[in-house]
């Protein structure tokens, strides 16, 4: 047993600190299930893609590779601003720079989802739908699932921002939210390469 991090409770009994905060551990376990979910989607996509003669199929619109690459930069930048926000939070918890950095993360995330939505509307107008082909079905399923996670993470960031403004945000809550955002950001390059570039 490691006593270096142990502390005494009110009754005098030795109380061991958990190695990972409960909220962080809960988020990690949740992300593990999410990773398996995405692994299953990617597996199905790879199998179908490798089983057909031509991918993307003839007559289907091509995906907006360049615009999405720029959009990816916005999303990756949001991870940097969130990292800086957390660092700022550790130094000066409820200071102005922390709030600004968190707000910047939020805006970058919203921008990413908005551009994705705009591109989707264009693709639908060009005839790429869920039912147009397996190509369209997988595109909307995989990228759409990621977009839903991005929207969920943005809602989470709004909640963190509110807690921070009210000076009620705990470090472990911030870390849990940060981990989820990193999951959304970290997953994106893999999906982008798989779905858009291959």
């Amino acid at each position, binding site marked *: *047993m*490691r006593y270096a991090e142990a502390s005494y409770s009110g009754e005098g009994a030795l109380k061991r600190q958990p*190695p*990972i905060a409960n909220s962080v*551990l809960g988020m*990690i376990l949740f992300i*593990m299930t999410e*990773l*398996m979910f995405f*692994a*299953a989607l*990617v*597996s199905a996509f*790879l*199998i179908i*893609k*490798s*089983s057909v003669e031509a991918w993307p199929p003839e007559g289907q619109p091509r995906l907006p590779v360049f615009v999405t690459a720029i959009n990816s930069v916005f999303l990756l930048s949001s991870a940097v601003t969130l990292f800086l926000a957390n660092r700022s939070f550790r130094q000066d918890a409820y200071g102005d720079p922390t709030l600004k950095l968190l707000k910047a993360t939020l805006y970058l995330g919203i921008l990413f989802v908005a551009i994705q939505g705009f591109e989707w509307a264009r693709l639908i107008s060009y005839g790429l739908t869920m039912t147009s082909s397996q190509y369209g079905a997988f595109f909307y399923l995989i990228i759409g699932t990621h977009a839903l996670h991005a929207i969920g993470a943005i809602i989470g960031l709004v909640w963190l921002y509110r807690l921070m403004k009210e000076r009620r945000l705990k470090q472990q809550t911030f870390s849990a939210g940060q981990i989820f955002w990193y999951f959304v950001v970290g997953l994106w390059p893999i999906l982008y390469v798989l779905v858009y570039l291959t």
Partner: protein
Amino acid sequence: MKLLRLFRLFPFLLLLALAKPALACSVCAVASEEARYAYYFTTGLLTFLPLFMIGGIVYYVAKKYR
């Protein structure tokens, strides 16, 4: 007694006899090399990813308490 036990197994043996081969094996339907590698890759991914993730947490906690 033994005969009675065997007799009890009869319905199960009958079910086995009734079973038809399932020709739904997706690997058999695909002949291309790329598809074969995709199957290997995805099998590996779905098998080892949970083990690595759980192993990672266990390793982290064990290291923290060492």
